[in-house]
């Protein structure tokens, strides 16, 4: 019985998150559209509201092309690896107090592990397609993942030190309910590093090198079409949501807000996540793209030293206070 309830919960979370992903694409297209003096989707439904559904149906019924030269099993597995790992990471996210599927003690580590595995899917996709652009895309992705997982992990060490836990719910609880006690203020350096690494980790502008359209056509997804392409797309957007959630949980106080919303406790959490996502989209509309070696330089020469400095300062602070 308990398993049934759990399965039901999992299905609910997945359905809700996938719906959000669908409308996140709408959200993104509308916002970028208005920033670029145009309307965005307008045709399907009122103000294009049904556009994501139309897109979903379209990609579902599109022909699934597998290149002859591709390594078929890996080619088929890559998008599944991406999507499944990203969905698995959803399990430990606390949407509100007690609203979490698996309240495990290593929540943060689990999410890191899952998002690293998703990059594995990207690399496999680049390699298995056996095409030149995808190969370059996969290569870039590999380098990018290695250089940005490290600062990302390091940037959250400060949070772990302050809260004394890896459990996401406990991290939120440790920040208290006041706006002044959230970790954004004591961990401002960590937040800065985390934010940049987050953009790189989700392959967003200005670090969208693995799929740099004007350089590598579409990078690692060049050879994918139809539903498999859509799976990568969904994985990318779920990835954005998960990292935005991590940012919310670790730095912005999670589900706590200025006042409690009755009947719908995750309200503040969702609002903060969408705040993050808006900034993602805003950045995409504003910034050009870094070059590959410049990206590496930022990761290794700027972010990692800053993250280490942050750990040192946090440790010093803790030692002095206690």
């Amino acid at each position: 019985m308990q398993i049934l309830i759990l399965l039901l919960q999992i299905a609910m979370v997945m359905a809700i998150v996938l719906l959000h992903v669908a409308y996140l694409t709408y959200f993104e297209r509308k916002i970028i559209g208005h920033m670029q003096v145009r309307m965005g989707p307008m045709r399907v439904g009122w103000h294009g509201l049904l556009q994501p559904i139309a897109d979903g149906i379209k990609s579902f019924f599109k022909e699934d092309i597998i290149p002859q030269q591709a390594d078929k099993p890996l080619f088929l597995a890559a998008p599944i690896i991406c999507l499944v790992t990203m969905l698995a990471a959803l399990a430990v996210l606390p949407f509100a107090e007690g609203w979490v599927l698996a309240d495990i003690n290593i929540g943060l580590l689990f999410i890191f592990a899952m998002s690293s595995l998703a990059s594995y899917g990207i690399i496999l996709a680049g390699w298995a397609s056996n095409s030149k652009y995808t190969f370059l895309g996969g290569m870039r992705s590999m380098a990018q993942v290695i250089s940005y997982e490290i600062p990302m992990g390091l940037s959250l060490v400060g949070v772990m030190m302050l809260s004394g836990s890896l459990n996401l719910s406990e991290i939120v609880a440790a920040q208290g309910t006041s706006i002044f006690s959230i970790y954004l203020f004591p961990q401002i350096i960590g937040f800065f590093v985390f934010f940049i690494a987050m953009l790189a980790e989700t392959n967003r502008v200005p670090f969208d090198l693995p799929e740099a359209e004007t350089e590598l056509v579409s990078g690692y997804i060049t050879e994918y079409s139809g539903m498999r392409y859509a799976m990568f797309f969904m994985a990318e957007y779920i990835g954005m949501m998960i990292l935005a959630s991590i940012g919310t949980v670790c730095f912005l106080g999670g589900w706590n807000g200025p006042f409690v919303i009755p009947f719908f406790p995750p309200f503040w959490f969702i609002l903060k996540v969408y705040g993050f996502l808006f900034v993602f989209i805003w950045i995409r509309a504003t910034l050009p793209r870094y070059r590959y070696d410049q990206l590496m330089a930022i990761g290794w020469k700027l972010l990692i030293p800053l993250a280490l400095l942050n750990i040192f300062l946090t440790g010093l602070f803790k030692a002095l206070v206690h």
Partner: protein
Amino acid sequence: MTKTTTLDVQVADGADDKYRLKMGPQHPATHGVLRVDLELDGETIDKCDPQVGYLHRGFEKLAEHRTYAQNIVLTDRLDYIAAMANNVGYCVAVEKLLAIDVPPRAQFIRVMVCEMARISSHLLWLATHALDIGAMTVFLYCFREREVLLELFAELCGSRLTNTYTRLGGVRQDVTHSIMLKLQRFVDEFPDHIAEYETLIDTNRIWLKRTIGIGPISADKAVDLCLTGPSLRGSGVDYDIRQHVPYAAYDQMDFEVPVGETGDTYARYRCRMEEFRQSNNILRQCIERMPPGPILGKDAPDLIMPAKPGRKIEFDAVAGNALIKLIDNRDLYMEGDVYVATEVPKGELGFYFISDGMGRPYRMHIRSPSFLHIGALATIGQGVMIADLIAIIGTLDVVLGECDR
């Protein structure tokens, strides 16, 4: 039958340890159908070998079978971003060959449409160059202004892109008051828009990192590589045909030629941004000083049907078309050869004619800036990274329609 699948990207041993990538002709950032054969070492380009010809339509050969007047439509399809400038360039050359006079009003209109074409071409360049580097929003901002110009072209001659606006000896349609008013409004507003583009990208750290010091060309090298236009002026060579060998009414215009110093992608970018302002100035002068009078010379070959009274229309049996027939008593079938170059937005567009007196070019050669700029890519693109190559292709401002002809 089972299909074997391989996972090996071919990498040979030893000296030939190169990753070969044929970038294009259907690559999103090669501005049409340019193909660049690359030999890569990681992401660094060891050898860069541009291949052209995917858009070859044989204009130079085609022109030998058509009269001078008929060839105007071919020039639209050279640099389709700035068709007006090509029209003018072609007509200036033919008029020199056939010794046709152009009335002053037509000269001014020609300068006006040339500069409109320059702004519209540079807008498209800025849009795609920024998009290549990843700045998506500039693209749409530029198209907003370009739309105004294209609408003006449509009002002027009925066509947005392939204008065929000039005629031997003048222009086809007179500018109306409404066009002048709209152009005036555009000229007044445009400087603000230039500032807007600059705030979007010129103060952007990433933009500066991606352009400063990328693809530098020294002045000597730029001359050796036959670069012209803003690509040459970015390297610090002050050469602009509008200024040095004026045609149309450019000798009566007051404008500066912006010249860069460093010759890198950023210098060329700055050059073109300054040209926006200069072109805008020229447009303003055109509006203020547009002289009255006819728009077609008296002895211009008659192309507008019906013909003026008293003018004989001969039916050309070879071409089988009355539209193209020339004039009354004067013999325009001159012999000789002529090379005339004009400054189009991309650089120096030259037309070389050999005429044997048959009313058609015996040979027409087009010196197109894009062709030579693509040739320069092999030298400039060596040793840079893929992302830089994209920036360099963008900054050289090539159009394949003009390159392949």
